[in-house]
């Protein structure tokens, strides 16, 4: 039996219908049309499907769509303010912190969650904070630099 879910995604009220065993990742991509969150592993190891629920960073592949009822969901689609990119998005481009781009939405969401809690992380904190996101292209170094640079700008330093 399908489940009707009323939730908030990137500040907008959204209703969708999903199967009870359908993941939130599949519901976002296939029912709501938000394809920013990607499926890499589907087992919570790669972080490509990262979103926040009520401000908490999670893998949407490990959440049922039905669990989203009444929650506040944020995806990469809500990061930019209209045409104005979020500092993290801008710095990822400036530092060439992506190549194929599959992991990027997850990294952006995870990096924002990290900076929300720790505006001035050192390199080790960034690497631990983003350990749940796998990138097979960049070697991570450019991602770390981009996050450091964005954090600096966001602190107004």
């Amino acid at each position: 039996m399908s489940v009707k879910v009323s939730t908030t995604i990137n500040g907008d009220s959204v209703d969708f219908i999903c199967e009870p065993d359908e993941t939130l990742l599949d519901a976002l991509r296939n029912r709501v049309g938000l394809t920013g969150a990607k499926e890499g592993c589907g087992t919570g190891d790669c972080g490509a499907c990262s979103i926040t629920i009520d401000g908490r960073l999670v893998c949407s592949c490990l959440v049922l769509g039905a669990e989203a009822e009444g929650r506040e969901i944020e995806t990469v689609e809500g990061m930019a303010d209209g045409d104005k990119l979020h500092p993290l998005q801008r710095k990822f481009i400036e530092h060439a912190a992506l190549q194929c781009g599959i992991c990027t939405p997850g990294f952006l969401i995870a990096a924002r969650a990290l900076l929300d809690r720790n505006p001035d992380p050192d390199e080790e904190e960034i690497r631990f904070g983003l350990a749940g996101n796998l990138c097979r292209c960049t070697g991570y170094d450019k991602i770390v630099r981009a996050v450091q640079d964005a954090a600096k700008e966001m602190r107004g330093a």
Partner: protein
Amino acid sequence: MQYEAPLTTQAAVALLAKAKGNAFVLAGGSDLLVRMKGGFIEPDLVVDIKRIKAMREVKKTAAGWTIGAAVSCAELGENKALIKAWPGVVEAANLIGSKQVQGRCTIVGNMCNAGPAADSVPAMVAAGARAQIAGPKGRRAIPVELVAIGPGKTSLKKGELVEAILLPKRPAHSGDAYLRFIPRSEMDIAVVSCGISLTLDGKGMVKDARVSLGAVAPTVLLVPDAARAIVGTNLDDAALEKLGRACSAACRPIDDKRGTVEFRTKVAAVLAKRAAKIAYTRAGGK
């Protein structure tokens, strides 16, 4: 599959008790969804406990602490008072998975998944934690070490679920610690792990201790011989050696891709000695 998100423990128990077919409790889902999607289980009913208010709370009580079954490990890591009282339990909980997994996973789920290498379980066993269970016949509380009875198997009966973890009140001069060995620096499953909790007298002698080992047997072990090795000592080198030997002697590990029997048996002693020193320092010992 039917998905239910009851608002009370009683409603959750009723759903589980009358369920026909395979019923599962959903807390964080970081194990359950992986097993579902991998085709290892085919639930007919999933009971999501995150809408049950009491299960979402961490409470300080006269008897100690009550940690609701649906409280994520990330939330435990942000609870300063809990970290102060039980640093070892929280550090173990915060070693499970990534930040993303932390946002979902729970220590009750970790315990009920009954993996021999579950990170939070040795720390809870060392802490003397009990699992508060609700079921069709009412409530009961049992020591955490009696919940898992083998890999993937628990002693819970049909209709029962764990509502909360109960951590005892801390006497003065107490400390706990958890260490694990993994070949990476993060995001891995323990090859060997050790949780130690101890209480000192005013002069730095160990008055009371509990030692637990993970990933060296089908279930997490409580090792009374290891505790006896350090009680009545100020954790001098001889006591630490004896502690290490008792831990190695308790190991009944398997050889697998993560580690050999020999390696696990040896490293159990190393981790126990290190964890004991950390717990001792946290308890105020010098």
